[in-house]
């Protein structure tokens, strides 16, 4: 009970502050926390990135292995995106098989990449109908201070951009770099009161009742949207959020993925 009261007080505090035009950490409503992206830090992975957004830390690793293609796409590689909300990353995460939150996180990131067709799956065919590269994107949150999805999505595309194809390990020949054709970037917003805030930290995320993630591409098109939370949003609010999301994704892309040709 004590905990619930504390939570209510904290929510009220966040609300009141926002009503007066401020955020708990002093940011502007349209500002991200500080972002950092470190690449290639796991040498056992074919690609990896450690992304920090404020105190939120997500490690993403990409592994490739030969496997059998699906019968309805014999000439295409396979993409599998997985997220585990490891209990070390938050007192709110529990041991056990993936729950709806980890499944949603993985699937939203997955759809962004798939929708943008960032990976040319046909180039991951080794032998039609027999053998293709299976690409596993594993999302491993280390510290959750809110907005895992933006960090995970950024980590995923940053990892992919540096992924090597492990031909040698499997005694295969072929191109050694993964061909990436677009750079989907997620931007997440919440609505608190009448205000739209980007990149919610944990306090804000807990205080908000609806959240929208927009994944957009280098050309400004959208390749993924996910609303979550228990309150509705108006059409105009969503339109505004989509606009902001595309803009923010553009800024992030330029700053953190800009050195890479996509």
């Amino acid at each position, binding site marked *: 009970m004590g905990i619930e009261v504390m939570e209510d007080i904290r929510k009220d505090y966040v609300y009141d502050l926002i009503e007066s035009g401020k955020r708990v950490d002093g940011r502007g409503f349209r500002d991200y926390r500080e972002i950092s992206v470190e690449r290639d830090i796991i040498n056992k992975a074919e690609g990896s990135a450690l992304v920090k957004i404020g105190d939120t830390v997500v490690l993403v690793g990409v592994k490739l292995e030969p496997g059998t293609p699906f019968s*309805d*796409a014999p000439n295409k590689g396979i993409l599998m995106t997985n997220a585990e909300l490891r209990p070390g990353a938050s007192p709110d995460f529990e041991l056990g098989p*993936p*729950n*709806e939150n980890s*499944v*949603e996180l*993985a*699937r939203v990131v997955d*759809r962004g990449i*798939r*929708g*943008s*067709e960032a990976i040319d799956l046909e180039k991951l065919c080794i032998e039609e109908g027999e053998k293709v590269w299976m690409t596993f994107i594993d999302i491993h949150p280390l510290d959750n201070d809110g907005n895992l999805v933006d960090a995970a999505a950024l980590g995923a595309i940053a990892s992919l951009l540096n992924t090597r194809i492990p031909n040698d390990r499997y005694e295969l020949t072929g191109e050694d770099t993964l061909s990436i054709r677009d750079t989907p970037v997620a931007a997440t917003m919440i609505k608190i009161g009448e205000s739209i805030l980007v990149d919610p930290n944990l306090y804000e995320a807990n205080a908000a009742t609806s959240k*929208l993630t927009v994944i957009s*591409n280098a050309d*400004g*098109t*959208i*390749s*993924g*949207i*996910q*609303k*979550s*939370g*228990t*309150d*509705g*949003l*108006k*059409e105009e609010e*969503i*339109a505004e959020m*989509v*606009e902001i999301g*595309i803009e923010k994704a553009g800024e992030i892309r330029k700053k953190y993925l800009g050195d890479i040709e996509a």
Partner: protein
Amino acid sequence: MKEEKIELIKDGKRLDGRDFEDLRPIKIEVGVLKRADGSCYFELGNNKALAAVYGPREKHPRHLQDAKTAVVTYRYNMAPFSVDDRKRPGPDRRSVEVSKVSRESLDPVILKEYYPKTAIDVYVELLQSDAGTRTAGINAASVALAAAGIPMRDLVSSVAVGKIDGEVVLDLNAVEDNHGEADMPVAMVARTDTITMLQMDGRFTKDEFERGLKLAKKACHEIYELQRTALIEKYSKSVGEGEE
């Protein structure tokens, strides 16, 4: 998306003869189950969805109760024979996510605070599927909740829009979904135009997205009327027949 390119629009018509802004045929039956507190059978083209609602009832185990409100669960399940390749029984990642967003699509309208410590359980079975299953399920569930007498602010209506052969169209069927360029399921409280579910995959320009959303909104209004009519008919029939 896009296994092989097939032409989805011919002479301005879709393969099943619909115009861009046409819904598939809808059929709604209310109160089709005896055991459930509320139920609804909802057909959308070749989709056959059945929703059963139980509650408010005691939530157990107790440590999952919420002292302030009812706890809503929503389970979306595809029958093994509802698709071309038999689906293995049991929840998979897709159904876990669909269940989550569907529950959240209904959450805003359910007056959960009226029934603290209870459970309101929504079970949606897809008996046959042809794309758009989650929207059919939400439409069924919304009516079943009302039929169960759960106090609600309003009904929720749901439909998908998508993009095929470069055109923004309403309510994709499976062929269109498999070969199309984008899909965006939407749920809303039609009367207040409040969007309670929004997902999208594939690729949309911002303009296409906005047009899609408007199209969905219009269709949700149509669906809302059908849901309302079905409930009223059921209710008047009950009264007429002296049923309760």
